């Protein structure tokens, strides 16, 4: 197995998990600063336990699926997943939809929690918000780790990348106690979208029995190709500035 494959799996899992962890952190911070850390951390902790159970359940099942079928199935899902990320990143880069704003998401979540402040179950509802936020973002992380790792037995490398990203975001959140609004989320989504789509195309091709030229290095070539295509599309889609009036 080439270092390109290991590096690509680790890098894709790290960057994708970083984006998801930033979104989860915003929700946990909103609950923690509005309702207190007990409901926030218990909700997040329960979600992590549920995710661990999901991984424990899915892990052994993956070993039962023939590798060709696994590569094809995971590849198809990755293509759909990656194209979805890439589409959103291109539309945001072209200015056709607004950029994701962590400060705004934090304010929205805090406002929703404030509206429930009079409710007797406010702490429980806050915990539920943290649980749901971490679980939903965490399911995406689990899928990404399985998807980029399962095709070549790289789940260990992908897990290291994902765990490092989650630990980094948690540490940053602990230090600054604010949403990570300065993270260039769309640029990250752009890179992750191209890498996940590249992995999806590669696995699906392998599942069909295609001997990719260059072997595993084809993943990087496909990622580069998709990145160039995405950059060209975002430039083409950007609304044209009106020509300055002649003086």
């Amino acid at each position, binding site marked *: 197995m080439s270092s390109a494959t290991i590096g690509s799996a680790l890098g894709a899992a790290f960057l994708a998990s970083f984006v998801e962890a930033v979104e989860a952190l915003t929700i946990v911070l909103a609950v923690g600063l509005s309702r207190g850390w007990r409901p926030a951390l218990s909700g997040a902790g329960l979600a992590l336990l549920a995710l661990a159970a999901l991984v424990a359940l899915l892990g052994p099942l993956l070993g039962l699926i023939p590798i060709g079928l696994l590569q094809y199935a995971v590849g198809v899902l990755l293509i759909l997943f990656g*194209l*979805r990320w890439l589409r959103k990143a291109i539309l945001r880069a072209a200015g056709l939809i607004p950029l994701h704003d962590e400060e705004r998401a934090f304010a929205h979540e805090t406002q929703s929690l404030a509206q429930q402040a009079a409710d007797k179950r406010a702490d429980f509802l806050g915990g539920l918000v943290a649980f749901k936020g971490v679980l939903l973002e965490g*399911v995406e992380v689990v899928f990404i780790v399985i998807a980029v790792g399962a095709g070549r037995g790289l789940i260990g490398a992908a897990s290291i990348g994902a765990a490092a990203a989650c630990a980094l975001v948690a540490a940053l959140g602990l230090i600054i106690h604010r949403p990570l609004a300065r993270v260039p989320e769309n640029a990250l989504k752009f890179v992750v979208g191209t890498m996940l789509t590249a992995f999806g195309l590669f696995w699906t*091709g392998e599942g069909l029995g295609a001997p*990719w030229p260059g072997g595993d290095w084809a993943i990087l070539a496909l990622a580069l190709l998709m990145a160039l295509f995405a950059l060209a599309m975002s430039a083409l889609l950007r609304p044209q500035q009106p020509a300055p009036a002649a003086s």
Partner: protein
Amino acid sequence: MSALSAALRELVGLFVDDSALALLAALVIAIVTLATKLGLVPPLWGAFGLVLGCAVALAASLVGARRGARP
């Protein structure tokens, strides 16, 4: 029941944002798979077709989104 359908919606939402893009990409994958499995095209050509088809599906979805965004 509503919690189950909400969870299912979230799960589908992981892969489907623009349904036209998901449908077109699924169609491309299905055509390439059939053509390859029936031996109509060699697997490598099928894989190249997959790359091209997915790029075309994404471009079509983006152009559609731009039309929709125009005032």
